[in-house]
C-alpha cells in the first residue's frame, strides 16, 4: 500500500484543523472498507489518514421517537441493523444497510463512509434520501447541515469543502402511518453492487388509502444517487392503488438517465428503475399500513 502518515484524531476540532492544513493530501478514515482498498489499488492518493474513530461524537448512535435518529459517521453498519427500535422506525434504511457487504464488512463499514465515498450505486444513499436524512458537517467555519440528496456531486465526489468532514447523519422521526423500503437488483442473491437500487417512502392518511406525501430515490441510474422529485410530487394526495403505483413508477423511470457499463446496459437499467420503483412503493405502502 502507498505510504502515508496516520493520526488518530481525538476531537472534531483536531480533525478539522488537520484537514484544513493538509487539504487534498489528507483523507478521513472511518471503517476503511472503501478507502483502504482505493489506496491499495492506487485509485485514491493520500499522504495523511485522519482516523476519526477515536472521536467520541462520531461514534454516537442515538434514537428517540421525539428527536429521531443520529448516526455518528464512525458507527459500523453492524450496530445499526441490530437495534429493533431503529429497524421499526427506519425500515427503508435498514433494508439498505443490511445489504452492504458480508458480516465482516458490516463490522467496519459505516454509513458516513458510504455517503462520503459518493458512489452512484451506494445502497444506503437512496434509502437515506427517502427518510429525509441530513448531513451534519464540521469545518473551519463551524457546523452546517446539508440534505443528503445534495451531498453527492459526481461519482466519488461530494459537497465537502477543504477542511470539512461528515460528523453524523441525522434522520428525523417518522410521522404516523409512515413506511419505507429499499430494493436493489443484482444478478445473484448477496454480495454484489447494485445494477439499480430504488427506495420509496410514503406517509398515508389514517384510513391508509390516500398518500399524503412520499419520496422516491434511485441508485446507479445517474452520476449521483437521485431524488426523483417529480415522482415524489406525483404521490401526494393520490389513492394508494395499483394505477397510481404504475404511473409514479413510469415517472421515476423517466428521471433515470443511466449509462451502460460492466454491470448492465442503459436499457436494462431504465427497465429496472420502473420495476423496482413499483415494487418498493408497494412495499412501503404495505409497511405504512401496518405501522401506527
Amino acid at each position, binding site marked *: 500500500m502507498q505510504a502515508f502518515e496516520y493520526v488518530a484524531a481525538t476531537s472534531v476540532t483536531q480533525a478539522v484543523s488537520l484537514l484544513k492544513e493538509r487539504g487534498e493530501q489528507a483523507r478521513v478514515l472511518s471503517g476503511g472498507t472503501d478507502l*483502504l482498498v482505493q489506496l*491499495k489499488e492506487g485509485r485514491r492518493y493520500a499522504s495523511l489518514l485522519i*482516523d476519526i*474513530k477515536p472521536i467520541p461524537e462520531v461514534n454516537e448512535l442515538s434514537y428517540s421517537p421525539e428527536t429521531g435518529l443520529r448516526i455518528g459517521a464512525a458507527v459500523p453498519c453492524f450496530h445499526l441493523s441490530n437495534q429493533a427500535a431503529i429497524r421499526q422506525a427506519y425500515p427503508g434504511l435498514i433494508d439498505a444497510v443490511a445489504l452492504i457487504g*458480508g458480516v465482516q464488512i458490516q463490522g467496519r463499514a459505516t454509513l458516513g463512509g458510504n455517503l462520503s465515498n459518493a458512489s452512484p450505486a451506494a445502497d444506503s444513499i437512496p434509502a437515506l434520501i427517502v427518510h429525509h436524512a441530513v448531513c451534519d458537517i464540521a469545518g473551519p467555519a463551524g457546523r452546517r447541515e446539508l440534505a443528503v440528496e445534495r451531498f453527492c456531486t459526481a461519482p466519488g465526489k461530494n459537497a465537502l469543502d477543504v477542511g470539512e468532514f461528515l460528523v453524523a447523519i441525522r434522520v428525523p422521526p417518522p410521522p404516523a402511518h409512515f413506511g419505507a423500503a429499499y430494493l436493489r437488483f443484482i444478478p445473484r442473491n448477496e454480495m454484489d453492487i447494485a445494477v439499480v437500487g430504488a427506495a420509496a417512502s410514503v406517509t398515508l392518511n389514517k384510513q391508509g388509502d390516500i398518500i399524503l406525501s412520499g419520496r422516491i430515490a434511485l441508485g446507479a441510474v445517474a452520476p449521483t444517487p437521485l431524488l426523483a422529485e417529480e415522482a415524489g410530487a406525483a404521490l401526494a394526495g393520490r389513492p394508494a392503488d395499483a394505477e397510481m403505483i404504475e404511473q409514479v413508477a413510469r415517472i421515476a423511470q423517466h428521471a433515470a438517465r443511466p449509462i451502460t457499463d460492466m454491470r448492465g446496459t442503459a436499457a436494462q437499467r431504465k427497465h429496472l428503475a420502473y420495476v423496482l420503483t413499483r415494487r418498493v412503493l408497494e412495499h412501503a405502502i404495505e409497511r405504512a399500513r401496518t405501522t401506527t
Partner: protein
Amino acid sequence: MSKTLVQARINGEEVAFVCEPNQTLLEVLRNTLGLTGTKEGCSNGNCGACNVILDGVLVNSCLVLAVEVAGKSVTTVEGIAGPNGLHPIQQKFLEHAALQCGICTPGFIVAAKALLDHNPHPTEEEARRWLAGNLCRCTGYDKIVRAVLAAAEVLQAAPAT
C-alpha cells in the same frame, strides 16, 4: 514515514509491535508476529480468508491498519482452540471433512466462532448468510455449513470455555 509502537491484546496476551502506518493488521500478524494461521486471499475485503475478531466484531484484517488496533483485543485462528485441544468448531471441520486445500479454513473457523458467539442457535439459512463473506474455491460450502451447525449442537450441549 515514522514507525509506530502499538500495544494490543492478541489471543489473550499483551503484545507490543512496531509497524509502519500503511501496514495492515494482516501483514503484522503474519510477518511481524509470526501468526501465519491468518491467510491472505484477495487483500481487498472480498474473500474472508484473513478474518479475525476485533473487540468482539468479525473483521477482515486486510482492511484494518495495524495502528488501528492499539489498545484493542484481537482473536486470530490461533486463539480459537482451548487449553485442552481443538475447539468444537475445529473438531467438526475435521469430522465433516469441511476443507479441501485449507486456505479458506482459518477464515471460516474465525467467522463461525463469531457467528456462534453472536447467535448460538443459527438456522441453516442464518449460518449461510453469515458465512457469505467467506469464499471457498474448492466449493466445499455444504460440508462447511454442516460442520458449523454440528459445532453449534455440541456447544449447546456443553459450552466451550
